[in-house]
């Protein structure tokens, strides 16, 4: 992650603040910064979303392409994740500097989606063993301001909600060769159900307490963090510990409970915002990048 240099006095100030539930910008330990979400920002993708969380800026694009299903799962389509840490985000990502972080984030995304209920993969199948939809999810890190995983998972969920996959029909010839027909109407498409798509909540341990949505400075003061991937019903799909420090099993349990609680609220807000955005219809004013 991008690192920031802090003096001892500043670190001590941050740690003491967290103990008293008053962080540097006035938030409590379980408060998120203001989040801005916008979908359908990139026109030549099947679905896209942009999320701004404080100084963190993420852009996700989803492209649906046809391909052959995997051998061990012939009735399902699948998702492929790719994360690009742009050099715009911080000078450390120049050249190949951002590759490590990119692979780490992509692997985490694979893990949290690696279960039967997150996305209905059977709906992505066109004809078993032959054709299926592959969703290529590309994540672009535009600016790095702390708490990357949360922002990325919110953006991925919003982009999947926005994805429209064209409806196809498989026609069989007399000789047995199959032909795939795309429907003429460009608005005739299937949408994915994102109800069970999980979101990541990162809990950073600072001192004796843990905080949600840490800024870069707070991340520099924390030795260990827990990434909890939670669905909207509060079910934990995956958990991962990052950082050099150690975590007590009791604090892991506490952090997990906080993660579940926070995750449910996160999902509820995101869901209501996405529906509100959709209800504004195609005439809504798109802000995009120059707003």
């Amino acid at each position, binding site marked *: 992650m991008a690192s920031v*240099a802090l*003096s*001892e*006095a*500043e670190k*001590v*100030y941050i740690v*003491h*603040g967290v103990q*008293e539930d*008053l*962080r*540097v*910008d*006035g*938030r*409590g330990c*379980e*408060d*998120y*910064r*203001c*989040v*801005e*979400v*916008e979908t359908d920002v990139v026109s030549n993708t099947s679905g896209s979303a*942009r999320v*701004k969380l404080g100084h963190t800026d993420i852009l996700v694009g989803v492209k649906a392409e046809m391909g052959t299903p995997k051998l061990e799962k012939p009735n399902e389509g699948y998702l492929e994740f790719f994360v690009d840490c742009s050099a715009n985000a911080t000078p450390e990502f120049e050249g190949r500097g951002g590759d490590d972080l990119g692979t780490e984030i992509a692997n985490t995304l694979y893990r949290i989606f690696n279960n039967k209920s997150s996305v209905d993969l059977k709906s992505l199948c066109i004809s078993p063993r032959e054709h299926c939809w592959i969703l290529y999810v590309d994540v672009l890190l535009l600016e790095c301001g702390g708490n990357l995983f949360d922002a990325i998972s919110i953006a991925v969920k919003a982009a999947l909600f926005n994805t429209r996959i064209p409806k196809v029909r498989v026609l069989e010839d007399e000789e047995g060769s199959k032909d795939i027909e795309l429907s003429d109407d460009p608005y005739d498409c299937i949408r994915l159900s994102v109800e069970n798509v999980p979101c990541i909540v990162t809990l950073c341990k600072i001192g004796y307490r843990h905080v*949600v949505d840490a800024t870069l400075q707070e991340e520099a003061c924390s030795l260990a963090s827990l990434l909890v991937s939670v669905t909207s019903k509060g079910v934990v799909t995956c958990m991962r510990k990052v950082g050099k420090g150690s975590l007590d099993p009791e604090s892991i349990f506490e952090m997990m409970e906080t993660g579940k*609680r*926070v995750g449910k*609220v*996160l999902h509820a*807000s*995101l869901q209501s*915002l996405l529906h*509100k*955005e959709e209800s504004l219809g195609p005439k809504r*004013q798109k*802000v995009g990048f120059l*707003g």
Partner: protein
Amino acid sequence: MAMEMRLPVPRKPVSESLGRETKKHLVVPGDTITTDTGFMRGHGTYMGEEKLIASVAGPVERVNKLICVKALKTRYNGEVGDIVVGRITEVQQKRWKVETNSRLDSVLLLSSMNLPGGELAEVQAVFSDGAVSLHTRSLKYGKVPPSLVKRQKTHFHDLPCGASVILGNNGFIWIYPTPEHKEEDAGGFIANLEPVSLADREVISRLRNCIVSLVTQRMLLYDTSILYCYEASLPHQIKDILKPEVMEEIVMETRQRLLEQEG
């Protein structure tokens, strides 16, 4: 716990909210300013192909026959006598490298130091390549564009709300709780790592958020503007100050109070 998600709102251009009558002539690097060769070239311009071209992005300023372009976002250019706040990044044999948001890292020679670990330093000399040599006068860091810090006689302000602010000319700002007794340090710097009280902390956080809102709305920073902004923000909760609509509201109020004071 608080969680707020919203749709993005396009930012209003600053001149609209200020209600300025005259539209400034904005240029970007490469734009022709004028083809009239009678003008003298100032900062941010150069002569090319018989016309005056801008080399930075910003509004064109004209003083009689002198044309210059004031850059919107610049690195700090040191001047003798300026107060700067810097971060020590590297310790070498005879000197320390200090990061001051300028084009090159500044240098702090051990021989000219009074306080080890000193955060506050005065610019002693400017080298020709832009590096500045600092010497110390005797500690919640925020970075702000240097153009928004007003040049004043004093930069150390003890605000009546219980915190003190050091406004460095280079854009770095240090906020700290006012020490109860003023000590004349002859030398020796003791890092004060005692926990800060909750009341002080709230003041500091509120001040920080106020300064951030002033910067976002591109207002000049000096003790009066910060104080008015702080007072305008009191009815809101500290964490709400960072919301765009609350930010606009308190900065508008600050602007009005400042205008009343001048007029």
